[in-house]
């Protein structure tokens, strides 16, 4: 994972497998970065993610809750078609916005 802070927006760039193993390794780092930077917006970029499962969905929903408590917003970016299916199934887009985003690291 890579990240960058531009203005009030914290960008996370995930790549490879976004499964149980990966999320275990990323979770605390992401929680701490959000706490540390207190961004108004977090954008999660999934363009380079080849695999995602319900663990990934759980992670996204948990960060959404973390950000909501601070009054901040979460945006999901650049999902592949298959990955979008998974997010749709979980109703994630009813509460979290989605965009194609070109801001890269």
């Amino acid at each position, binding site marked *: 994972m890579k990240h960058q802070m531009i203005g009030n927006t914290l960008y996370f760039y995930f790549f490879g*497998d976004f*499964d*149980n*193993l990966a*999320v*275990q390794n990323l*979770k605390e780092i992401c929680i701490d970065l959000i706490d540390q930077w207190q961004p108004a917006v977090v954008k999660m970029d999934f363009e380079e993610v080849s*695999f995602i*499962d*319900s*663990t990934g*969905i*759980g*992670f996204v*929903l*948990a960060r959404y809750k973390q950000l909501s408590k601070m009054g901040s917003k979460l945006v999901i970016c650049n999902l592949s*078609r*298959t990955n979008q299916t*998974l997010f749709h*199934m*979980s*109703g994630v887009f009813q509460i979290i916005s989605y965009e194609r985003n070109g801001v890269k690291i």
Partner: protein
Amino acid sequence: MNEMKMRFLSRVENEPFARTSIVAFLMPLNPGMEEVMEIKTMIAEAVTNAIIHGYDGKDDGWVEIHVRYEADHMIDIVVKDEGCGIEDISLAMQPLYTTKAHLERSGMGMTIMSTFADDFHVVSSAGKGCVVHLRKQLHGQTTSTHQ
């Protein structure tokens, strides 16, 4: 007809091993890209459930997977654990229901498996382990709608 069995410890790093091995075993059927993703996701959900819920995160339980396919490309996958079992299966099946919200589980595993499988059922009871049956008809590359 072809079949295989694999058995591994309930360690988190064995889940990617399981899903990639099973997809590799199914390669002679020339599955479509989307089918590969769906199979990988189903295995990930079933094995993660066994590890996180069945064995409550303990890494010394055994997970067994049995895969079988027929000449018509019908595949059957059975994922078995000897963990704590599920008391109320229909409750567990409900989208977004999870007993482990504190671990940031989404409660979507069962829903994902039932969406991607043509037939999906779970046999389990409290203290008796869990057996997940997944059946899927492969159509292969030609009918894949992957972009």
